[in-house]
């Protein structure tokens, strides 16, 4: 165990003994996400570096403080990638923060979410113990799947020290198409295409235009291009488009201060075939219909109610007060399990308290 980890163990034990809340922070690029961070700053960037990477094993093991950009550049050298296309939201993003936030980008509906690629984690729990779960292999059912539990838990269960991720080869060919159609038509077409063996790897509908990305073997992409019709988008423009979507730098997301206008950016995760939202605001649809971004001034209750009626859940992604509900409220039996899990990993309640839900 390195000196740094030993220091961190001491710090966690002392914080637990004193009941001091710790705000775990990597590059701080996702500090906007979730309920308001609280507690003493616990900077984890010092634990950085690639532990092992063997392209033929399709696995990379990396310390959590490693910049995401550095990891992606390394994979790119071997023509591999993080297939879930995680958003960076800034140059300083770390892989630890990426896993803690659990967010996936445009390729998610086709390739899987971040949690699908997490093979193992090493964490520091609230007792100051270093624990390893999962491993570096694709298939592993020994013990409960704690690695995936940690993914997306917003640092509330422990300090992520190291993660092993499955990586995939970059597609041989990629092309983007642009088609004009209405919201309802886009939802219908995307679900129809989703049921066919087409190499769809991303989709985005907004303002009457549907963009779809095709990825895979040359022949498959060529055949799909011919079949789907629409206009082919030039490669540079396509890269910029999907990049802008992934990083939320596209015009839709805007940089106008959301708070001042009373507008929030909502992330609505719904069944892909769910009907149009019929909520006031400006909308962008990703993930074959399953992710609907909404910039809106409509009251949170109304948005949550409509999303729940469609079978999904709503997150206030940006904007609005951060001391209230950001994530969709949980039914009582699930909340009980959440509280018990939190207590299991962090009995003194010191890690990112309240970041996910009040009392967690």
């Amino acid at each position: 165990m390195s000196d740094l980890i030993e220091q961190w163990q001491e710090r966690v034990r002392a914080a637990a003994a004193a009941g001091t809340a710790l705000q775990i922070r990597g590059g701080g690029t996702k500090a906007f996400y979730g309920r308001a961070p609280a507690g003493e700053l616990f900077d984890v960037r010092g634990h950085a570096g690639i532990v092992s990477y063997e392209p033929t094993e399709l696995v990379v093991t990396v310390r959590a403080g490693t910049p995401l950009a550095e990891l992606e550049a390394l994979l790119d050298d071997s023509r591999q990638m993080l297939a879930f296309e995680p958003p960076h939201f800034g140059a300083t993003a770390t892989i630890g923060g990426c896993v803690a936030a659990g967010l996936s980008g445009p390729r998610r509906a086709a390739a899987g979410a971040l949690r699908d690629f997490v093979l193992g984690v090493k964490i520091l729990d609230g007792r100051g113990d270093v624990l390893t779960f999962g491993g570096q292999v694709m298939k592993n059912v020994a013990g409960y799947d704690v690695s995936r539990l940690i993914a997306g838990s917003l640092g509330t269960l422990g300090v992520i020290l190291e993660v092993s991720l499955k990586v995939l080869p970059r597609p041989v060919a990629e092309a983007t198409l642009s088609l004009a159609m209405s919201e309802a038509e886009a939802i219908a077409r995307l679900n129809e295409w989703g049921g066919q063996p087409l190499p769809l790897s991303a989709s985005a509908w907004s303002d009457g235009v549907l963009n779809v990305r095709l990825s895979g073997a040359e022949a498959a992409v060529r055949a799909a291009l011919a079949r789907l019709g629409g206009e082919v988008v030039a490669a540079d423009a396509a890269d910029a488009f999907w990049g802008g979507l992934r990083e939320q730098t596209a015009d839709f997301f805007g940089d106008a201060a959301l708070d001042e206008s009373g507008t929030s950016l909502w992330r609505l995760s719904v069944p892909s075939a769910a009907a149009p939202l019929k909520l006031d605001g400006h909308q962008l649809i990703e993930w074959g219909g399953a992710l609907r971004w909404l910039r809106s001034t409509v009251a949170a209750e109304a948005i949550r109610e409509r999303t729940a009626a469609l079978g999904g859940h709503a997150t206030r992604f940006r904007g609005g007060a951060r001391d209230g509900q950001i994530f969709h409220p949980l039914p009582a039996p699930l909340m009980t399990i959440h509280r018990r899990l939190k207590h299991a990993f962090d009995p003194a309640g010191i890690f990112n308290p309240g970041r996910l839900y009040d009392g967690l």
Partner: protein
Amino acid sequence: MNFDAEAPTPGERDVDFSAVDKVRLVEALARVLPAGALMYDPEDLRPYECDGLSAYRQLPLIVALPTSEEQVVAILRTCSAMRVPVVARGAGTGLSGGALPHAHGVVLSLARFNRILQLDPHARTAVVQPGVRNLAISEAAAPHGLYYAPDPSSQIACTIGGNVAENSGGVHCLKYGLTVHNLLRVRGVTIEGEIVEIGNHALDAPGYDLLALVTGSEGMLAVITEVTVKLTPKPQLAQCVLAAFDDVIRAGNAVAEIIAAGIIPAGLEMMDQPATAAVEQFVHAGYPLSAKAILLCESDGTPEEVAEEIARVRAVLDAGGATEIRVSRDEAERMRFWAGRKAAFPAAGRISPDYYCMDGTIPRKRLGEMLEAIQAMERKHGLRCINVFHAGDGNLHPLILFDANQPGELARAEEFGAEILELSVALGGTITGEHGVGIEKINQMCSQFSRPEITTFFRVKAAFDPAGLLNPGKAIPTLNRCAEYGRERVSKGHVPYPDIPRF
């Protein structure tokens, strides 16, 4: 805060349930269940005494066969109140003894939960009861050009509830994922009788990823009453390449080279010479018997895609020193290529009175080392072993051949198996890739995990099942058991098999 003082550490030792009173329990359950949903005569209990791991047998006190979720709730509330262990069971095809009954407990069979409740071809989802067979889902989806991707070899018989409990894989999981990657939602009942909806029909759910936690939890967190699975478009075409090698290591390297070329085949399997010989006399797949190892590499997709990928695979295998390469010319030939691989377990049963199937997973590059070590173990234990692998993901299924009627052979087979599993851990892998820990590999959990990690597992269990009544004694060893097993590693830095070269 002194954590040791907060509460006794969970999972310190096995809990004694011998005080359970069968007569009182039968009375209590009879009050909440209809006639015919309860069995307690030893004759009726016999079919439930084991699962696919028949070396371990135990009669339960009672078997309950509920037909509705309300009945499941009533059974669990009753058992919870009377502190009775409950073991959920699907088709009983599991290979690790996960559904082995508890001597003082109830077996809760989900066999009557056998309906497909909803199949939505547009949204590509199916809502099914846990007792629905894996293959039945694909059959129901077939008219829509869809199927359920995970295909464990027992898919004709195994149920989706059991698949969720074990996080089952199959030969196509390198490309299409395990059960955990193909689920959207699980509805279940906790031991306290609370109905929980975990996940939903969207692509993610708020809060912690409980869906991942429940998947592969071996019936220890909740009893599943409903499952929503994702359906995948059926590829237009699948073609299989069969390649022969005169050296096992070279075959292993070819696997790595295929991946290095940026190809993710739909399936990538390997068999050694003894395995090939065993299946050939059983199914006549036409395998080259002189080869030291054969690879099966499947490509699927559109006809253009498949043609392109097969050409790339061929080039890699040629360069990798394959002595023979055959590409399936039609569906019949493809099925014949696979028939041998899929018949490996029954073939082992044909050439030997008994066999013991292992399930370790290792990094692919350690395959050669593992095979050499297994050869040495064959001599040491005086038993033969034939090897089939899900080579693409490093999941090994060595089949140890033995005769249970010969005194001492079962014990030697178990020692042999334990040695393979512990070497899997030492090589950077895991003791189980897809069959689960159950009762079978519970001692080896002590070599894979440290005390605090095992304690954490018990705490996770307690978050769902505070009284520890769901499938007690399985999957996670008590600390006491690990101490008795006597091989607990103080730290993971300790490596067994120091004589094996590492690089």
